[in-house]
């Protein structure tokens, strides 16, 4: 028999709460503490930034999906579903829920809730005019049926081999998001008076009301309603609403996990998210020891010396983040440029190759990244089983002379002022868009690249622009080139934007091709064969459940991508870092840094504990 938090024990004694045994499932999920069994108590302080930081809460508490990632970010593990079966064609997934799990108000969590969440909520076209991508395959939404009280079956119209991985990401939380007994009151199907209720609540429609009460995965209102039952270790006490200066979450007395000694989790009583508007004040709180664990927002390389120097003062240790991204700075030349001459230039592979070897990467890494990286092009990180040496390292050797020769050969001869001319006589000139507020290091890096390229006769402008504009220019295909960190270092399946024209807002070297791909050829521009081939291969990989087979397919993609050399990378994504107060234990000091592995969530904060 395990223990429970003293405060809860007191409530039980007062008769205000059922005893622990009644609150826990029969076979509660057992979590092995990272270091040792913890002790109850304490309030964990963490910072949020501004008003759009709801994902900062999600990452900490909101990972209670049917499945979850393991700590290493390599495999999917059971969570609310204690096991599952997948049909061979990867179209049917049957999940067996842990029996006796309760929502934070004590109401049992059953298959009905999952069916309700998908069938009544997500598939309600008034609420979701389009089904979230994860839950739709081949344009058709998934069907969810209740097999028994604790068994649900998901059926897709076509193979969806990645579904489990997707389910483990934050975007896969829909099935466990909406408690039927609470949220049904906001649906017309269950509540005929819903429009009147909406009026009374001061909103214009029932959908507004639903969202403000039940939230959604990535909107602030998910944390704005103290009444909504959840399955999370902590529940909202002081909500995240407009104008709030902090958010407080308190332990969920019905949380369904225990440690190896059967003690109900979480150990920590309360989480206190202070909301800072500015990173610097967050930094101040960190170095003066007012934050217990933080990596979000402060993980800027330039902060590292300051954070290191204040380790003693702030009484914390450093947390190393393993980037899941592959590339610190990927340069996307617009191969599909509107101007034919520019297009021709960027589409010229040897031009791109010459520019790539014209960059003195070691110097750049030394200056901008404190020597903390290595030259790199693209593809899975060296530690990943699908690592592709050629794709990752080709054309990273700095050789200005060779670059010059290549450019000469490609027809870009030097003009009078030392800068090269295009075959049509125009000076070679283009600008690279970068968002300084978001990625200040990329500005520094590009500045250096500019000087390197000037040496080989290429004139480039570092175009620092505002965020929304960056997107608009990309969407309009109006950019010469843009930079962004390249993803897919540890999760190549989830964001393959650099490997082929996959992401309409990410694969910035050929946005029209991505449109062609995502719209099944209806929009955009038809890509060349090599792209089409990769698109097909990726679709194949996506529907391959077998990991090895899938890897083989993906490796083909990397080979082609390496050959085509569409994007130019600078260096391997640099590891981020964070801080952990010395009295906070059970925290892995090294963890992946990814949205798919929404750190630190999969490290299970419910088993974090304070030592005195």
């Amino acid at each position: 028999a395990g223990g429970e938090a003293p405060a809860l024990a007191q409530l039980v004694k007062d008769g205000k709460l059922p005893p622990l045994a009644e609150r826990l499932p029969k076979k509660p999920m057992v979590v092995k503490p990272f270091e040792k069994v913890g002790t109850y108590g304490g309030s964990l302080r963490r910072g949020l930034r501004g008003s759009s930081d709801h994902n900062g809460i999600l990452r900490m508490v909101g990972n209670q999906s049917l499945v979850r990632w393991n700590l290493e970010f390599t495999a999917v593990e059971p969570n609310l579903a204690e096991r599952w079966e997948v049909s061979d064609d990867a179209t049917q997934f049957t999940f067996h829920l842990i029996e006796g799990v309760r929502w934070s108000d004590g109401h049992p969590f059953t298959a009905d809730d999952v069916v309700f969440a998908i069938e009544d909520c997500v598939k309600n076209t008034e609420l979701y005019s389009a089904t979230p991508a994860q839950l739709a395959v081949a344009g058709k939404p998934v069907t969810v049926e209740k097999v028994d009280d604790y068994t649900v079956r998901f059926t897709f119209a076509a193979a969806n081999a990645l579904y489990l991985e997707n389910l483990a990401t934050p975007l896969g939380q829909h099935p466990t998001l909406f408690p039927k007994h609470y949220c049904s009151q906001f649906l017309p199907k269950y509540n005929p008076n819903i429009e009147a209720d909406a009026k009374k609540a001061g909103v214009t429609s029932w959908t507004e009301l639903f969202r403000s009460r039940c939230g959604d995965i990535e909107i602030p209102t998910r944390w704005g309603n103290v009444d909504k039952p959840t399955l999370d270790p902590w529940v909202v006490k002081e909500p995240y609403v407009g104008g709030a200066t902090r958010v407080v979450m308190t332990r969920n007395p019905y949380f369904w996990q225990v440690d190896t000694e059967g003690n109900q989790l979480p150990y920590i009583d309360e989480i206190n998210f202070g909301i800072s508007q500015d990173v610097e004040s967050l930094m101040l709180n960190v170095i003066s020891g007012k934050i217990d664990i933080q990596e979000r927002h402060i993980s800027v390389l330039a902060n590292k010396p300051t954070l290191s120097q204040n380790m003693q003062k702030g009484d914390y240790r450093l947390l190393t983040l393993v980037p899941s991204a592959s590339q610190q700075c990927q340069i996307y030349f617009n191969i599909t440029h509107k101007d034919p001459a520019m297009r021709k230039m960027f589409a010229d592979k040897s031009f791109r190759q010459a520019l790539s070897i014209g960059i003195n990467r070691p110097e750049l890494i030394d200056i901008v990244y404190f020597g903390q990286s290595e030259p790199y092009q693209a593809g899975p990180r060296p530690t990943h089983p699908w690592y592709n040496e050629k794709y990752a390292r080709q054309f990273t050797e700095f050789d200005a002379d060779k670059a010059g020769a290549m450019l000469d050969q490609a027809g870009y001869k030097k003009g009078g002022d030392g800068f090269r001319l295009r075959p049509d006589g125009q000076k070679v000139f283009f600008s690279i868009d970068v968002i300084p507020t978001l990625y200040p290091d990329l500005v520094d890096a590009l500045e250096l690249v500019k000087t390197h390229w000037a040496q080989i006769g290429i004139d480039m402008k570092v175009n620092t622009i505002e965020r929304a504009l960056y997107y608009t220019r990309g969407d309009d295909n109006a950019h010469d080139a843009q930079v962004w960190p390249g993803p897919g270092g540890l999760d190549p399946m989830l964001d393959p934007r650099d490997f082929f024209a996959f992401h309409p807002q990410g694969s910035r070297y050929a946005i029209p091709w991505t449109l062609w791909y995502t719209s099944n050829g209806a929009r955009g521009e038809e890509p060349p064969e090599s792209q089409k081939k990769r698109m097909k291969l990726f679709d194949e990989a996506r529907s391959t459940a077998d990991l090895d087979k899938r890897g083989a397919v993906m490796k083909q993609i990397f080979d082609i991508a390496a050959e085509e050399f569409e994007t130019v990378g600078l260096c391997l994504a640099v590891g981020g870092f964070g801080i952990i107060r010395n009295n906070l234990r059970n925290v892995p000091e090294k963890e992946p840094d990814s949205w798919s592995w929404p750190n630190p969530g999969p490290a299970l904060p419910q088993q974090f504990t304070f030592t005195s």
Partner: protein
Amino acid sequence: MADIAVTNIQPDRAAVASQWQLIWWAFRRHRLAMVALVVTVMMYIVALVPGFFAINDPNLQNARATFHPPQKLHLIDTENGFSFGPHYYPMKLTRDPETLAAIFKEDTTKRVDVQFFGRGYEYSVFGLFNTNIHLIASPDRTTPLLLFGADRLGRDVFSRTVQGSQVSLSIGLVGVFLSLMLGIVIGGISGYYGGRIDFFMQRLIDFVLSLPTIPIWLAMAAALPQDWPATLQYMMITIILSLTGWAQLARVVRGRFLSLRTEEFVAAARLDGVREGRIIFRHMLPSFASHIIASITLAVPAMILAETSLSFLGLGLQPPTISWGVLLREAQNIRSIATAPWLFMPGCAVVVAVMALNLLGDGLRDAADPYNK
């Protein structure tokens, strides 16, 4: 009064000075203002040819000099015998492996003599020709002289400060003067005529005043053509801002003019046949000159600093453009406060500029004040 009892007055009629001469004479007596004038002129000379005064290429990144503290320029060398001449010692760099913090130590065994009018990096003068002669140059390119230290990329803060003066002392001022002119003219007309004209002008001013500035900034940043150079864009922003910024001055001018216009000397000027414009500018405005001089001298630092706030919001000038605002913005973080306070040296430049301009303004005010003889 046949003869005034004046001693030492030249009898010559022509000995009488014009008002400008008078002001200049009065100004010259004001020692602090003269110093301020000299400083201001020097700052503008620097701003004209910053390359000449810079020691190192302001954009040159140097891996071994990141967060390099300021270096001392020695005059007397006692380490290697005894000798005179401006020189410095290169710093030796070691890095703390854990914290990545750099540790610099002066290496007194090596001595580098600085050269005056020596050769350094190449820069262009007014965009006309290129040269590489600098006021101060260091013969040793590998261990450059960093008078104000270096920033996170090992760039020379001194040279950047010098370079930044160009933008900071010029572009922002365009807006200042534009809004000044608009404010005086519109406020002057409103206050001079009063009545109905005033009423409508005031509604216009109210309207402009209540226009929210932040959305204008944001909209502006987006609306300007992207292929303009950063400085031109920024100039446009300041100009457009001045199109709303005039309203404040206009209100103040108008308030003052409303009472001034009842003064007898204004009536006298009107009878003299002076046109409205001249009445406003030549007759009424001087009575208000102190306020306006004060406003200008205040607006200049405000403009230099506004740039820092603008870039804080992701607007305004952005690196790689160098201006004092950008430099300060880059320095504005806990890291600089805690570990690299020399990054605030551009702030000292701002202080000096502000001080010089204000003292200059004070001097002008005093010199133009008829009661101050």
